[in-house]
């Protein structure tokens, strides 16, 4: 039985997730510090949700012999990730870095259908709008972390990296729009803002594919609440299932000894795409990517 420490924000009901996991027991914490000692009573530590894991802290966990799952929005640089993977390899440990959005049930279904009924993705459209943070935390990545997660999502749905990248921005990166050319003529459009008023965020994903299309959108997935005045749209959550799925995959990999380092190659492509987007923002030119050829 894997003993898993889950570092995450409070809103998720970890007890519910614990009851759904096979082969693991979990304990939740707001901080990983407790587990950065070899004697700490856990085999693995999972960062999940809207966190920004500290590289040094993750390194301490790995050096303490803990497997680590990073299921947060991207916040570490490629160089930092490479260094952490090297540490993990040295200690024969698993360091898994995943995009939590891949595990949303809606995204899982779309990916599954792309391989079956829908055919190849021709146009992927992503909108992600978030509220302005109370305290601005600039990403050392040069692009907003959630946008990099969406670049990963497009890689995943399209089956590989793009061949060309064009980007525009406003407000010093508070709004960024990325346009990707995909091999085989396909394309993707992503826009990200962190300028919504305080409150709910918005996500939309549509995939126009060769034999069909999929539309996953918060507008479609909202219930209506009437409390006087204008009706309110209330989003339907899919996060419990999402987090169960991503933790179960990690636990299964630890149990079976499956090597999770393969996702490093995918992240290398994603970070290269993000680099190209930054270059496009600087030069106002479209930037070709050799990996996507």
């Amino acid at each position, binding site marked *: 039985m894997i003993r898993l420490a889950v570092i995450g924000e409070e809103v998720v009901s970890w007890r519910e997730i614990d009851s759904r996991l096979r082969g693991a027991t979990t304990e939740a914490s707001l901080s990983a510090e407790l587990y950065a000692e070899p004697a700490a009573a856990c085999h693995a530590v999972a960062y999940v949700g809207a966190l920004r894991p500290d590289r040094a802290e993750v390194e301490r966990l790995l050096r303490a012999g803990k497997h680590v799952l990073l299921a947060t929005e991207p916040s570490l640089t490629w160089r930092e990730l490479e260094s952490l993977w090297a540490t993990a390899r040295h200690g024969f440990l698993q360091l898994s870095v995943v995009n939590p959005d891949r595990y949303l049930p809606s995204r899982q279904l779309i990916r599954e259908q792309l391989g079956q009924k829908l055919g190849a993705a*021709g*146009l992927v*459209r992503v*909108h992600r*709008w978030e509220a302005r943070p109370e305290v601005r935390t600039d990403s050392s990545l040069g692009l907003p972390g959630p946008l990099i997660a969406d670049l990963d999502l497009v890689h995943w749905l399209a089956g590989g990296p793009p061949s*060309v990248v*064009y980007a*525009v921005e*406003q*407000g010093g990166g508070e*709004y960024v*729009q990325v*346009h990707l*050319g995909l091999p085989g*003529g*396909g*394309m*993707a*459009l992503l*826009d990200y*803002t962190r*300028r*919504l*008023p305080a409150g709910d965020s*918005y996500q*939309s994903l*549509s995939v*126009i*594919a*060769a*034999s*069909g*299309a999929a*539309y996953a*959108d*918060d*507008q479609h997935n909202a219930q209506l609440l009437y409390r006087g005045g204008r009706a309110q749209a209330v989003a339907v959550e899919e996060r419990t299932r999402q987090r169960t799925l991503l933790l179960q995959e990690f636990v299964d990999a630890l149990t079976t000894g499956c090597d999770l380092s393969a996702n490093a190659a995918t992240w290398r492509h994603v970070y290269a795409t993000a680099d190209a987007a930054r270059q496009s923002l600087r030069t*106002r*030119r*479209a930037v*070709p990517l050799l990996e996507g050829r």
Partner: protein
Amino acid sequence: MSEPATFRCAVLSTVKHDYVARGMASHPRFELAVVADDPNVPEWAHERNQQFADAHGIPYVRGVEKALHEFEVQVAIVSPEAERHCDLSIRAAHAGKHIVQDKPLGTRRADCDRLVAAVEQGGVKFLMWNRNFLPAVLHARDQIRAGAIGRAYAIHADFYFAKDAGPPRGSRAPGYPPLDWQAHQIAAHVDGSDGGLGRAPLGELAIEGIYPLGYLRMLTGADVRRVFARCTPFFHQLYADNRVEDLASVTLEMDGGLAGSVALGRIGAASHPSGGEIRLHILGSDGALVVNEALPGVGIYYRNQPPKETRQRRVASENDFLLADDFARAIDTGGTTILDVHAARAIFITVEAALESARTGQPVEVQ
């Protein structure tokens, strides 16, 4: 109180869409008086024109100038093959007739420029047919005007229409003769799945781009200054054979630093249960709007329903009436129409730049 003037209309070809003429006739101030076309058009075109004339109990005249000068018309409604749009509209402008024209504005920039000049010289009004008066689009406009989202800084339009266009791409064996564009469009008219009718193949961005770009223009009032685009024949063999796009995406850089995009395609009938996903996403300094263009609607489902029948029906649309009303108001007051010849030309050159961007792989200035 005197009755407002009624405008008599000459329908100059109905070979592409008869809905433009029917839409104008939905307004009590517009009366269809005659259908006309050039005598040398093919017989299938004469037949189509004659059928429309018969259906409306008006004469069909094989002579455009004769119809314009001898039937006491004030308005020309123009919907021939795409490459004849400008020619017929220019002739109408020279005859002093106000013009309602089907999309696209034209197929060559020089023709569009001549049309702009003719409209200006003739002192006539011009309306490019569009969808800007659909209830959802008007709702978005009203919200923006009321300041609900503050100052818009980004706007996106999805315009996917779920229609087929012959066999899927890749479904034919190598070495087969390429599908003939015009022959396909003529045949497809029967079930309404025809696209850009004309001798020269036209991609969907060139044909349908007027709609989403018309939305963006009305909602922001901004001109597009720079574009980056990707276009491909992704779905249909007809488009691949004729090297035009049925799927496109365009990044727009607009006046005042406004960012935008259009995603557009003829995505196949199987890809949406109700004709297509058409939506607007608008970000402003104080909020945002997500607009489903198909609303309001009613779901209709029944046993043995034909597969291609729309399940989610649009209701309460007065687009046709409001376009005609807007046109009448422009004539009455000397004002501009919701999508006049200058706006239509601005959209034409945006599309032209987007197609060039798709060819070159680099952003292109809209000049």
